[in-house]
C-alpha cells in the first residue's frame, strides 16, 4: 500500500557513501587550496552520480547524493559559511589552553590530531552559499526519486563550532552562536522545501554523548563535540530540543527527521558509545520533527521496546544494516526487525535504512561501495517481501 507517493516500508539511506579515490584526491587538493570550489564540485558531480546509480540499482526509494561533496557530515559548512575555519585538532590544541583534554579525546578515539578537523567559529557566522540547496538541485536533475538531504543538527554545530579560546571573541557563549545557527538552518530548510526537496534529516549524534557520558563536562570526540557540555543532560537535551523546534516550527510541506546514532566512524566497538535510546525517547518525542532515524542493526542500540510508551507517535527510520561490518545482513534479519518495530509503529510509519552513513568521514569509510551496495540490496529485498505480505 503506497503512502504519500511512496511504497510501504520505503528504503532510504542515512546519507554518506564511500568516496572513490579520485574524489579523495580532489578533496585533498581542495583542502590544500589547490582546487577551486567549482572545480572540486565538477569532480564531485561524477561521484554523486556513481553513488546515485548504486542506490537506484539497489532499489532505494528515497535517495541521497552520498554526501560526496562533504569532507564529513558536518564540517562541510566551512565552505558555506563565513566566520568559520576548518582547523585540525593539531591547530586547535596549539591555540587552546586545555590541550590535555583534547589529547584525551584523541586517545579514546585512537586517532591522530592531524586527521581530525573541526569546523570552528572564528568570527561572526553568515551564509556564503546555501548549505545544501546546490546538492539537492544537482541531484534533482538526475533522478525522479524522492530526495533526502542530511544537514548537521543545530546542537551538533553549536557543540562542535564553539571552542573556548578561539570562538569567544565573536560569540561569548555557545548559546549565542546557536542563535545564528538556527536562523541559517531554518532558512535552508525553507529553501529546500520551496525547491521541492522531499526530506531533510538533521544529524544529531551528539545527543547520545549527552546521555551516555552524562555528568562528563570534558569534550568527547563523539562526532567532534568540541565544546564542553554543561554536564547536565537535562539542560543539554532541553537546549537541543529548543534549537530543533526553532528551526522546524511552522515549516510544513517537507518531511523532517532527526538522525541519532552512537558513532559509526570506527570499526572498533570499544571506542564507540552504546546504550538504549530509552533515555532519549522523551526528548525526541518533544521535537517537532516527523521521523526518528535510528540505528537498530546491532545489539548496542538496545531494544525497540524503548518506544512502548509512545506508540505510533512518530515515524521511524529503522536502522537494519550495520555500515561498519563486513557481514551482509539477511533479508530475514531485516524482516525480523520490522516485525519487532511493528509493535510500536504502524506499517506506514516504518522506513528502512542502514544504521548510519557508509562514509561518515570521507577518508575513513567503513566499507567499500560494493559492500555498502550489497547491504542496500538486502534491505530492498526485505522491503519487497514485507510489501508482498502486506498485500
Amino acid at each position, binding site marked *: 500500500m503506497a503512502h504519500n507517493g511512496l511504497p510501504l516500508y520505503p528504503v532510504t539511506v542515512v546519507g554518506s557513501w564511500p568516496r572513490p579515490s579520485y574524489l579523495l584526491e580532489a578533496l585533498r587538493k581542495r583542502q590544500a587550496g589547490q582546487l577551486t570550489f567549482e572545480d572540486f564540485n565538477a569532480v564531485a558531480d561524477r561521484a554523486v552520480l556513481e553513488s546515485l546509480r548504486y542506490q537506484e540499482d539497489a532499489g532505494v526509494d528515497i535517495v541521497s547524493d552520498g554526501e560526496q561533496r562533504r569532507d564529513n557530515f558536518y564540517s562541510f559548512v566551512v565552505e558555506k559559511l563565513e566566520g568559520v575555519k576548518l582547523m585540525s585538532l*593539531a591547530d586547535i590544541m596549539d591555540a587552546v589552553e586545555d*590541550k590535555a583534554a583534547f*589529547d584525551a579525546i*584523541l*586517545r579514546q578515539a585512537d586517532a*591522530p*590530531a592531524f586527521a581530525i578537523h573541526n569546523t570552528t567559529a572564528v568570527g561572526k557566522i553568515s551564509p556564503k552559499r546555501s548549505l545544501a540547496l546546490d546538492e539537492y538541485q544537482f541531484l534533482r536533475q538526475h533522478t525522479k526519486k524522492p530526495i533526502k538531504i542530511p544537514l548537521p543538527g543545530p546542537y551538533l554545530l553549536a557543540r562542535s563550532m564553539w571552542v573556548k579560546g578561539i570562538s569567544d571573541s565573536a560569540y561569548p557563549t555557545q548559546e549565542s552562536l546557536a542563535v545564528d545557527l538556527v536562523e541559517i538552518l531554518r532558512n535552508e530548510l525553507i529553501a529546500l522545501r520551496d525547491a521541492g526537496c522531499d526530506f531533510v534529516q538533521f544529524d544529531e549524534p551528539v545527543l547520545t554523548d549527552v546521555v551516555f557520558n552524562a555528568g562528563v563536562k570534558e569534550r568527547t570526540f563523539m562526532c567532534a563535540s568540541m565544546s564542553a557540555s554543561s554536564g547536565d543532560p537535562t539542560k543539554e537535551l532541553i537546549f537541543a530540543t529548543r534549537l530543533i523546534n526553532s528551526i522546524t516550527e511552522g515549516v510544513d510541506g517537507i518531511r523532517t527527521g532527526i538522525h541519532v546514532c552512537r558513532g559509526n566512524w570506527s570499526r572498533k566497538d570499544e571506542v564507540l558509545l552504546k546504550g538504549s535510546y530509552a533515555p532519549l525517547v522523551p526528548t525526541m518525542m518533544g521535537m517537532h520533527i516527523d521521523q526518528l532515524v535510528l540505528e537498530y542493526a546491532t545489539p548496542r542500540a538496545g531494544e525497540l521496546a524503548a518506544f512502548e510508551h509512545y506508540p505510533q507517535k512518530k515515524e521511524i527510520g529503522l536502522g537494519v544494516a550495520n555500515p561498519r561490518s563486513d557481514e551482509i545482513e539477511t533479508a530475514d534479519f531485516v524482516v525480523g526487525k520490522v516485525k519487532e518495530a511493528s509493535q510500536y509503529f504502524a506499517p506506514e510509519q516504518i522506513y528502512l535504512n542502514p544504521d548510519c552513513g557508509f562514509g561518515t568521514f570521507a577518508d575513513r569509510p567503513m566499507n567499500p561501495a560494493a559492500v555498502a551496495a550489497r547491504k542496500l540490496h538486502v534491505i530492498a529485498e526485505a522491503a519487497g517481501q514485507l510489501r508482498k505480505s502486506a498485500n
Partner: protein
Amino acid sequence: MSDQEHKIVNGIDLEAFQSALEVVGSQPAAKHAPKASRVRWVDGLKFKAQVRNHTFIVDEPAHLTGEDTSPNSVEYVLGAYGACLATGFVMNASKQGIKIRNLEVSLESTQNNVFTFLGLEPSTDGHPGFEEITAKLFVQANADEATLRKIWEHTITTSPVHNILTRIATIKPEVDIIA
C-alpha cells in the same frame, strides 16, 4: 631551629610534599605512573611534543639540516637524565633537612654508532643508543661529604630516568595508515 625553618627547605614545603606523597601512595593505580605524550611533525626535521598542557619543540642541529631551534631527541634524554638526577638529589636532601646552596649536574654522552641511524652504516654495525654517559654532580650544601655522597648514590639508584636508561622496557610499536 623553628618549625617555620623546618617547613620549607630548598623551596620545598616539606609538609605539603609529604601530604602529596601520602595521597599518591594511597592510590594503587598511581604506582605505574601512566604517562602520555603526543608528538606531531611540524616541518622538515622539527616536531612538536605535547605532554599534558605543555608543548616543546624537538629539532635537529644545523649540521644535520635542522633549524636548531631546540634540542634533538637524544639531547632531551640527556637533559632529562640530568634533571631527574637533580630532582632526586634535591628531594632526598630536602627530606633530611639539608640546605642546598648550589647544584648542577653535568653530563656527557657518547653513542655506540649513530651512523646506523643516519643510514651511513648498516644496522649490523652497532646501534645508535647510548654507549656511555657520565653524570657529575656539583653541589654546595650544608652537610658533610659522606652524607652527600650517600644521598647521590641513593638518587642514582632510584632515579626514574636512570632506570629508563639502564633497564629494558617493553616497547609495543603500532602503526595506523591514514588514507
